[in-house]
């Protein structure tokens, strides 16, 4: 090849990163997927080690007008990290250092690729943890948590990611490095930090994150209530909150979920039950004791079969292991799943759950419900085998029905998994054209060239569209 050959984007990335840039076909395909059902193929995968390298990559992408997508651990459930438009994938996985732990101010600075649970484990010896605990916490990255404003079972009492992130160093889409937010309690000016959290990589790439440390509670009690009727369980959820208790976590699992979870953890989940509630109470011992008694009363009124109280940390950990591995255990029923993430008012839980089961029945699918009941965040899983002909149409029809039921009940589209690619074309159900136009303006202010994770969250041009399938961009497979 002649030395005067025009340099390709790959050449330039290679000059910057050496062996940490890849374009082998097989490898590229692995970075075409996250934990959702969608997939695409990127042009290149980069593994930067610090903010300067991320900046370098973004600069190169700007010069070549090539889209770029940040990727953490690839556990997103909405296709946020799925490549569209032949992009460069910027993996933050090797940026995984905990930079500083400041116990006095209760802040830690971490790189985006630090795994959520690794952070809490590192904080354990000091008596602290990072409160947002997505069920994927053993593997998802803090950067991904920030980008999706992720929640978790314990966010019922503690709030989601945005309540626990004080500042972020960000490489903006124009390759400028800025720090959004600050460690002072009330930063002046617009809360750009708040805007960035939940922006799913469309407003730049977080390269350092300041997280708030939460002290471990003095006392914790974990209870498992079982019900012979799903509706009783759902009613008990509201009853617990109405009794004035805000549990640290309040999770519901239905019969199908219990079966697949128990097959993995052997924690003694009641496989006969129609539903169980996993309730966690934390705080000072006296208050926790009193709350346990109240919950026992509620359980009786709502026909709970039994109330099991974890006797020690091992039993507690085992019960949680079951809950946290639920999505991953679906293949025990069917090898593929499509998952929704709507939030409905607690008072409508019974009604919407019934509609979920009806939708599954109508399209001859299996519905599995395992979700954050305390804040009405449903996670109906439609389990299927993609090898069955015609199955995808049925899955999408049932999904549409579930979304419609949730919206009709006054709910929202996504509780915590983000919009990404998968829920993008449902946005018009929630927002008017004017709303979406305004959101697009905000996005443009950050990314006028449209290179940062394009075609995610907002439909392109933010025009309304009706059906999910028709609008999946070219090059993406479901």
């Amino acid at each position, binding site marked *: 090849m002649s030395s005067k050959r025009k340099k390709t984007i790959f050449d330039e990335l290679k000059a910057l990163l050496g062996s940490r840039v890849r374009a082998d076909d097989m490898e590229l395909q*692995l970075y075409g997927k996250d934990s959702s059902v969608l997939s695409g193929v990127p042009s290149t995968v980069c593994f930067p080690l610090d903010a300067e390298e991320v900046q370098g990559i973004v600069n190169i992408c700007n010069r070549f007008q090539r889209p770029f997508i940040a990727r953490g651990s690839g556990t997103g459930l909405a296709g946020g990290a799925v490549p569209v438009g032949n992009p460069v994938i910027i993996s933050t996985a090797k940026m995984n250092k905990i930079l500083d732990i400041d116990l006095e101010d209760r802040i830690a600075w971490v790189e985006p690729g630090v795994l959520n649970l690794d952070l809490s484990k590192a904080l354990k010896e000091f008596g602290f943890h990072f409160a947002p605990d997505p069920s994927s916490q053993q593997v998802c990255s803090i950067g991904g948590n920030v980008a999706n404003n992720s929640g978790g079972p314990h966010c019922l009492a503690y709030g989601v990611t945005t309540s626990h992130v004080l500042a972020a160093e960000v490489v903006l889409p124009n390759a400028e490095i800025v720090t959004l937010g600050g460690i002072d309690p009330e930063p002046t000016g617009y809360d750009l930090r708040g805007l960035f959290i939940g922006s799913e990589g469309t407003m730049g790439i977080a390269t350092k994150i300041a997280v708030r440390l939460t002290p471990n509670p003095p006392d914790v009690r974990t209870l498992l209530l079982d019900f012979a009727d799903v509706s009783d369980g759902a009613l008990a959820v509201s009853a617990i909150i109405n009794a004035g208790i805000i549990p640290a976590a309040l999770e519901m699992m239905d019969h199908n979920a219990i079966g697949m979870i128990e097959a993995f953890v052997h924690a003694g989940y009641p496989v006969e039950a129609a539903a169980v509630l996993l309730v966690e109470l934390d705080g000072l011992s006296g208050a926790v004791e009193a709350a346990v008694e109240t919950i026992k009363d509620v359980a009786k009124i709502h026909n709970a079969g039994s109330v099991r109280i974890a006797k020690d940390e091992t039993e507690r950990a085992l019960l949680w292991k079951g809950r946290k591995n639920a999505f991953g255990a679906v293949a025990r029923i069917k090898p593929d799943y499509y998952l929704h993430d709507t939030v409905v008012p607690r008072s409508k839980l019974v009604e919407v759950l019934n509609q979920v089961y009806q939708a599954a029945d109508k399209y001859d699918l299996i519905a599995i419900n395992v979700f954050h009941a305390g804040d009405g965040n449903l996670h109906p899983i439609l389990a299927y085998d993609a090898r069955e002909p015609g199955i995808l149409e049925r899955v999408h029809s049932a999904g549409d029905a579930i979304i419609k039921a949730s919206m009709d009940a006054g709910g929202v589209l996504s509780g915590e998994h983000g919009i990404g690619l998968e829920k993008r074309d449902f946005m018009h159900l929630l927002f008017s054209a004017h709303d979406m136009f305004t959101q697009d303006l905000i996005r443009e202010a950050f990314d006028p060239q449209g290179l940062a994770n394009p075609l995610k969250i907002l439909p392109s041009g933010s025009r309304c569209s009706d059906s999910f399938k028709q609008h999946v961009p070219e090059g993406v497979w479901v």
Partner: protein
Amino acid sequence: MSKNFKVSLGIDEDALASCVSCGLCLPHCPTYRVTQEETASPRGRIALMRQVEAAGVADDTFISFMDACIQCRGCETACPSGVPFGPMMETTREALADQTSYQPRYRRLGYSVLGMPRLLALGSRLIAVLQRLRLIPSRLALPRIPLRQTKLKASGDDVWLFTGCIMDAWMRDTHAAVKRVVESTGAGVRLPGNEAGCCGALHVHAGLTLKAKKLANKVIEAFPGTNPILVDSAGCGAQLKDYGHLLGTTKAAAFSSRVFDVHEWLAENLDKLPKINSDEPPVIVQDPCHLRHVQRSHEAVRLVMNQYIGTIELDDDGLCCGAGGAYSSLHPETAAEVRTRKLESINRSGGTNVVSANPGCMLHLQQAGVSIQHPLELVDSIIARAMKRE
């Protein structure tokens, strides 16, 4: 770009479909932990298998991705969907060994020696002599091999002790200690002759299934009767327990059902172990992957140890130490990086002395300066010291 060649992996279709790509296995995979790359993760490896199975072609890059797996099977215990990763990887390697140049002649030859006890003993003695003459470079990281080995003598026929290949040639003292602990329960120990030899685990890992089957048949013949067969090497134990599946015969299945990790057997006979009050400081338990993730009987080690000594747990959820049978010789760099994580965890634990029920892990960690023993070597020494006091 490397050359493509035709290949059919022959992995069970349902097994291949059973991965939902959730990624929950990633942090439990040693090679992902040190690379942070999908190609070195269980999820990635499964996706690669799917690609190759669908296309019917592979290339050297694919082989190198498959070969970089330690086959520790930590992903299996972590996977909520029960994806049978170990068998899938074994099938893949068998197909690669059969259909491609994955296992070159010289490597096959090396594996063959394991099944030839006399040659192995001779070779080992040669290495031992060369080591004394300082002619073996230390970067080869071989353990110091004994010049002379005392012969083990049978003491009855209540249980068998499986002695294996490398371990018998290099670490017979461990067998001797294990034997004494078993005997301390009152049981008589029977030994297979020289003909039992190698269990074939390394052959299965390398994809040399046919050879492994031959070895399995030989082993089965060497253990007549119905008495339990005790194994003090987690890797060998896992393999012997799998003979039923490997050979698919009722005879092999019956053999496998007689196999116990020696700790499993002792845990059932705790009341027969000598009662001793010892005030030893607690010891760190490092679980061999093939005990924890394959046999899933690592708790038994604690039950036995705790009769005599306290145990300290590591905080890495049973992440592999990097030994992986032949892995540490074939991939020394990755193996050392994986080991570094283990060393860090050992440092954090507050303990100093480690026990591990697998010769491979012992050697691999010893080379990094860890003070490590087989759990039953420690128990044996505690019992011996107490006897002396009396």
